């Protein structure tokens, strides 16, 4: 097979199931499940093969002319692979979870059709080799997630969906002029490690600053940077697997990944620093971090609390790439993966508790740990990881951000990490405490003598919780998210240097 086919195959493994599943009649559950799972598993295998290939130095690229001067480019490199691996892996676990969670629901062909279309868009965003391709898939993502958000179909769901659409479309519409402006200013440019706009920035700093601002505003809506975060808590009306996906892999992650690509691969960290774009971006991220954490403390609803926590946690990624230090960039990049693992685990567990015990609020969680020890064990691990307890995932991130901040002369970064740890502890630890150490008003009834949720909801959480531990304990092993991020940061700074 030609190497250029591989990126297309990554897209096809979800696009084909999407189209077929959507056409399936509702009753063909077996076919629908088999096809979706087959697509997810083969995608993981494919991405694993790509990882090995890229580590050996091979390049996979597919491109074709859309208009003169305008190309669709899908390219597999180190940074895209970080995103692809996370998405493919969590998509598989979320597929298993969604099949279990929605078992017996109606309109499943529509759901899983768009579910697969959503992963297609995410893969496209990951692979996009230039801004144009990125934008196409970015809009496809908006369109394909809307039916998932409003899946329940009641008034609340529709209102949440409307809000999501309003924010996402506005954000997307800001990106379009930014792309056009860039095209007019510098012609067609592909993403490349270390940035491609150094010369253009020297000639036309003001215009490129404007373009950067537009790009960050457009991407910041999906990345939930304040004040573009408003849709996120409202989109919580979606079924839990969708929330998990939105928060860990697809939508917010696409926004954060977009910001990473703009800073590292379009402008380049050095050029962005010279234009003076990074300090305001860092300030925005820091503000979002504090705001999201404080709002999370105020929520009693389990899912809203997790939603605001996403707002806070995701800003680590933006903060990392905006500190102009290789070590901090490593922290930001690795958090793309770590935040996904931690947050997806928390959502799986929240959904499991809601399904099994009917609990949606933190204040009702007393004693849930005794009733569902494995689920709440996974929740506890992921929660402690978010607080930054070593050697779990979140600690690796905070360590690199803190050290990177000091190395870049930004002394406030360790203080911000300190504050973030305290605030995170304030919204996570009460949940853990209630689950394990508080007595429930009435003992939770067991279901058929069983103390846990059904396996399809339990195992995805256990797998991702194990990953939360593994990426911390084996942080320096080859192919770990940390090692891979170090590789990316090395290239971005080596090639950007004069």
């Amino acid at each position, binding site marked *: 097979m030609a190497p250029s086919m591989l990126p297309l195959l990554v897209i096809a493994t979800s696009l084909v199931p999407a189209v077929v599943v959507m056409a399936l009649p509702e009753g063909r559950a077996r076919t629908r499940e088999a096809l979706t799972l087959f697509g997810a598993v083969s995608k993981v295998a494919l991405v694993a093969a790509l990882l090995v290939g890229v580590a050996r130095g091979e390049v996979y690229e597919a491109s074709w002319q859309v208009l003169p001067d305008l190309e669709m480019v899908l390219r597999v490199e180190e940074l895209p692979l970080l995103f692809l691996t996370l998405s493919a892996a969590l998509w598989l676990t979320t597929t298993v979870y969604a099949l279990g969670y929605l078992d017996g629901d109606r309109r499943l062909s529509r759901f899983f059709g768009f579910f697969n279309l959503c992963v297609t868009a995410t893969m496209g965003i990951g692979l996009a080799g230039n801004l144009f391709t990125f934008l196409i898939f970015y809009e496809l993502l908006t369109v394909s997630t809307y039916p998932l958000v409003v899946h329940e179909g009641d008034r609340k769901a529709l209102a949440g969906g409307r809000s999501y659409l309003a924010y996402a479309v506005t954000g997307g519409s800001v990106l379009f002029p930014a792309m056009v402006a860039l095209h007019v200013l510098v012609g067609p440019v592909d993403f490349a490690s270390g940035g491609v706009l150094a010369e253009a920035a020297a000639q036309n700093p003001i215009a490129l600053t404007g373009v950067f601002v537009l790009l960050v505003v457009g991407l910041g809506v999906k990345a939930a940077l304040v004040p573009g975060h408003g849709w996120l808590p409202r989109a919580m009306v979606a079924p839990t697997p969708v929330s998990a996906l939105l928060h860990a892999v697809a939508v917010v992650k696409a926004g954060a990944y977009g910001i990473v690509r703009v800073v590292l691969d379009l402008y380049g960290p050095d050029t962005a620093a010279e234009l003076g774009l990074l300090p305001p971006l860092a300030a925005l991220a820091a503000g979002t971090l504090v705001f999201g954490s404080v709002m999370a403390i*105020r929520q009693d609803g389990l899912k809203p609390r997790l939603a605001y926590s996403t707002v806070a946690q995701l800003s680590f990624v933006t903060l990392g790439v905006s500190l102009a230090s290789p070590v901090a960039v490593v922290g930001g990049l690795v958090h793309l993966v770590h935040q996904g693992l931690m947050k997806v685990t928390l959502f799986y567990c929240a959904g499991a508790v809601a399904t099994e015990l009917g609990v949606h609020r933190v204040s009702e969680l007393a004693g849930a740990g005794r009733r569902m020890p494995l689920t709440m064990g996974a929740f506890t691990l992921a929660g402690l990881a978010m607080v930054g307890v070593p050697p779990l995932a979140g600690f690796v991130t905070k360590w690199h951000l*803190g050290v*990177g901040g*000091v190395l870049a002369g930004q002394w406030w970064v360790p203080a911000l990490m300190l*504050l973030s740890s305290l605030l995170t502890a304030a919204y996570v*630890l009460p949940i853990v405490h209630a689950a394990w150490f508080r007595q429930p008003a009435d003992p939770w009834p067991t279901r058929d003598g069983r103390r846990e949720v059904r396996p399809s909801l339990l195992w995805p959480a256990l797998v991702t919780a194990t990953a939360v531990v593994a990426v911390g304990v084996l942080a320096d092993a080859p192919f770990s998210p940390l090692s891979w991020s170090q590789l990316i940061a090395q290239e971005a700074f080596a090639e950007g240097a004069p």
Partner: protein
Amino acid sequence: MTVLALAAVAVPASGAVAALLSTRADRALCGFLWVASVPALLLAVLGPPLELAIPWLGLGAELALDSLARAWLALAGTVWAVAGLTVPALVGDSTERGVRFASPFLATLAGAVLAALAADVVTFFIGFALVTYAAYPLVVHDGTHKAVRAGRIYLQFAVVGEAVLLAGLVTAVAGTATTRLDTLATQLAGAPGAGAAATLLLIGCGVKAGMLGVHMWLPLAHPAAPVPASAVLSGAIIKVGLLGWLRLLPTDGPELAGVGVVAIVVGVAGAFAGALLGTTQRDAKSLLAYSSVSQIGLMLTLVGIAVITATPGALAAAGLFAVHHGLAKAVLFLGVGVAHTTTDRLRTAVLAGQAFAALTLAGAPLTSGMAAKTVLKDLASQLWGPWGPVLDAVLPWTGAATTVLLGRLLWIQVSEAHAGSVPSAGRRRLLGGWMTALALTAGLAWAIGERWMPGVSLPVVTDVGVWWSQGWPVIVGLGLLTLMLRWAGLPSVPAGDLLVSVAAAHASLRRVARVTADALTAGLGQVAGGLRRAAGGTGRAAFRAQARAEHVLAHWSAAGTGTLVLLVALSAALVVG
């Protein structure tokens, strides 16, 4: 020996996991908790000096067995072993409770051993954090209202301490460009941001150690835990904080002498304040917890001397002091449990043992306290300027204060009725554990002294001059105690001291805030009403969220505020110093 070093961590860690996964009451597990500390003890006694790198683990783990590590392994191994022996009798082995106790008990041991063996910053922090978080289930084990409150306050302090320590570590590592503990300590003094890093490290480890000013959780948490947990908490776990000071604070270069001076001042103040506050306690375990605050003050004084003078002997002396105090404190805590559960005839013997451990802590002649305190005084008297003579004059009085404090403990214990008897199976191990600790208290510090801790010169046991200099504070203390018990009624300070007054101040502040807010709301009622109507449901939701947030914050902020105020005060003191 590599295998032994790994086993010292892995055996308790896997025991903790096994206990966590075991769903039924497991008698064997609870009966053999002491076995988990055997590898650590063997390593301490038999292990040759050792360096070990495991690059794929964490951010590149490095372990080393040096003299401090050896002392800490011996301390942790003994304290966990003797406390483990008492678990069946004092916690229970036939119920789910025993199994629930076993897992965090072993996990804290694994963390303490890992912290002792760590040669790089991240591995040390992993061990430190494991101890911190695994200790929480120990504190709330009893599930009573008191224990849950103590646990909440413990966790608030612990999380703040961890976060401060992480900030300090990050700053120090970025400044010195090394993650190895030995190079970090020698290079920090000249590195950029050294003052800030050292301050953060002093406070971050201080929370765990029970340093005066951030100690308020300790007199609540240690007594709330079951007796074997109190013994490891007060005997060994606070020493992980001390180890952090010894490993991380700069010991080279005069730039950071200010930090050393602050450490000495806070340490000596803590030694007296802990004893004073402890004397007012009515509960034996709270009193012992304050005694730990007092003793850790003396060890902090040694840390300060090490920072100022860069004498390796000061570090070794702190190690010796830690072993001495840890064992004696384990005897005293376990003795409270033992005395509760024995018949009258044995009680006299138990109280005699308690009296011996008390005299040891006071530094009476021939005890390990004589060794530890003489070494402290010798080092202190060599300090420059006025510090040497001042400490020379002040330090003996800590012996008198300790005598008063622990005399009061014996008084409480004598007047207490015993609670009942234990099943005979657990009883033998209970007495065995306590007596082992008592025997080691008498001998271990003398035995390891100069052999394991190079740079320490112990006093000659038969030197009558030392007998006198160590003896008179005890005699003065006994005299004060007699006067106090005969004539003075004791005031009673609630355990947690400052925390309680901070909570009261906070409550009145909240009342003022609420009255102000009510007034404002009344004034702006019209406007707010209009706005609220305009904002519709969103506004109401926001108000409800506000109310809920207040509810949450009310539980979290009292202790938090207190801590922050103290941290600010301490930082200010450091900047000035």
